[in-house]
């Protein structure tokens, strides 16, 4: 049985201009100890999708579908029930460790709070455990750091505090929303290494949201590519990099800067922007930006089909290397 089984998750926001479809029928699953990465451009719904699992999305969000964590339904669960899951069984690390930590409370206390809440530890016991945790996540001089305020630490150290907070109660699932995006490149590797180590040591699963395929290649076991609120491709990390099936995945991979190739080598962007979905259209959401889009791509929504072992794609022309000779001729 999967640790997390998300089925047909749909998140709709009501805005002044009408409802916006942030996540459209997203399904995926996560096995214990697995690192799965949700990848996509900004605004593709990846963050909203995972925030809604713990009821952390805004009050304007309208959510449907199902998300079973260890056989309990998370979507639509009461706050009381969710509080027992949050921080204890499912923990979060967010993008910006500066704004995610309370500026007026010492970092030690912020971590201790989780232990006192879920483990009922006394202040003194929690303190000792926090110092252990700080040591474990690689914070130097952990006992002194206990009394530091967030602004007195570097970005990388703050993120380590966030991670210490997340693993304090040995959760079975860690949700990491762009955990390295706000950090220097040199710091990023250390944080990713730490996440991997923690996974290996504790067997917790990690759901990693990122737009950075470099991060994905480093750490993920399996990848889910999202575009405009929908899953467009899912594959083992190796398969995804070696043999991308969806045109969007292909373009994403081409957009990664490469070494070599001389001055003439140009960085490839993807023309156009992610559309804002007002409703679920009868078309491939990527068709407007796709170089090989056929007529069918504009009029019918492709289903999700097996494209190889452990690989599936939502595309009418999976694996196409180049633009088809005659637009719209391929079936």
């Amino acid at each position, binding site marked *: 049985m999967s640790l997390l089984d998300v089925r047909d998750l749909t998140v709709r926001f009501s805005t002044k201009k009408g409802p916006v479809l942030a996540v459209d029928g997203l399904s995926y699953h996560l096995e214990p100890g697995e690192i799965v990465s949700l990848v996509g451009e900004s605004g593709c719904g990846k963050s909203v999708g995972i925030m809604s699992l713990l009821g952390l999305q805004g009050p304007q969000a309208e959510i449907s579908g199902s998300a079973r964590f260890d056989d309990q339904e998370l979507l639509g669960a009461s706050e009381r029930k969710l509080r027992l899951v*949050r921080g204890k069984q499912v*923990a979060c690390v*967010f993008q910006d460790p500066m704004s995610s930590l309370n*500026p*007026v409370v010492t970092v030690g206390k912020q971590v201790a709070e*989780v232990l006192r*809440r879920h483990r009922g530890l006394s202040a003194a016991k929690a303190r000792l455990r926090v110092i252990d945790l700080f040591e474990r996540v690689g914070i130097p001089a952990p006992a002194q750091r206990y009394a530091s*305020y967030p602004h007195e630490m570097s970005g990388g150290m703050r993120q380590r505090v966030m991670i210490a*907070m997340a693993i304090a109660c040995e959760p079975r699932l860690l949700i990491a929303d762009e955990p390295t995006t706000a950090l220097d490149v040199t710091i990023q590797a250390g944080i990713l290494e730490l996440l991997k180590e923690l996974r290996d040591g504790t067997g917790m699963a990690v759901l990693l949201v990122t737009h950075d395929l470099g991060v994905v290649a480093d750490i993920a076991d399996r990848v889910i590519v999202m575009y405009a609120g929908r899953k467009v491709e899912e594959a083992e990390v190796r398969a995804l990099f070696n043999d991308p099936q969806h045109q969007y995945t292909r373009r994403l991979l081409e957009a990664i800067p490469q070494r070599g190739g001389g001055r003439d080598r140009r960085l490839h962007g993807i023309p156009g922007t992610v559309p804002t979905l007002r409703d679920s259209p009868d078309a491939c959401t990527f068709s407007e930006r796709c170089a090989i889009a056929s007529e069918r791509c504009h009029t019918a929504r492709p289903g999700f089909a097996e494209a190889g072992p452990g690989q599936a794609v939502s595309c009418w022309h999976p694996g196409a290397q180049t633009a088809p000779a005659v637009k719209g001729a391929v079936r």
Partner: protein
Amino acid sequence: MRFLARAGSALITLLIAVAVVFLGVRALPGDPAVALVGQEGDPAALEAVRQQYGLDLPITVQFVKYLEQIVTGNLGTSVRTGMPVSEVIAGAIPVTLELAVVAISVAVAIGVTTGVIAALGRGKATGWLVSVGALIGLSIPAFWLGIMAILVFAIMIPILPASGFVPIDVDPVAHVTHLVLPALVLGSAFAAVIMRQTRAAMLEALTTDYVRTAIAKGLSRRQVVVKHALRNSLVVVATVVGLQLGTLIAGAVVTEQVFVIPGFGKLMIDAVTTRDYPLIQGVVLITATAYIVINLLTDLLYSLLDPRMRIMSGGSA
């Protein structure tokens, strides 16, 4: 270090305030000597008075003399009562200070509580009710509210004294009962301001990332609101309290007048209506000093509430 710099700048501000008061009083229409001796005064008597008060000296010399006086704690002599100005003021200040402290405490307690309720009840009936209540509290002038309070609680339902002041060593119970209505009246507008600021600060704090972190930790709603959102909002509230203390002095003027309380505010009005120039000068000077000291204390309170301010104060990180 930084505190010294801050204190130094406060001192300069105070010096400027003294100069403004000094020049302001002298710029007022009318000659103080004439005010003392009378319109029909004998020129020789006028001259004598001018000499007595040093009014015949160049204005710069007068200013230096005035500064010397202030530094030695001499604020001059009240023209009306013949008592030293410092003594007159010293007698009135404790009364106002007590009234202000009680009013602020009441206002902070009511303002912060209702502010949190309003923020949490946003878009619901409770939030709306509290907001409207605050708007009413803000809109009602203190003198009208004071008169209405007397009418209701002293005359229609006579449970509290209508006016006056009883020193604590004379009758402690009467002392307290006499303070209830003035403190509530003085604090009401203040409470409304604090409520609005608390509400705004809370609404902002509740959307921050660190509050999301607190929720994601599995904390209870009360823990999230009090330990994380409110703790940060208090920095804003402290600023407002600091800034509004000046307004509170202005409010005390009216409140003391309505309730006939022999405090600083009543002294101020009496000094102006009787053209008691040395007393006006002293009262304004003390008010300015109080303002500056309060601002200094507010700054100190910040660093207590917000550790980030401490790093800016030049301490090592």
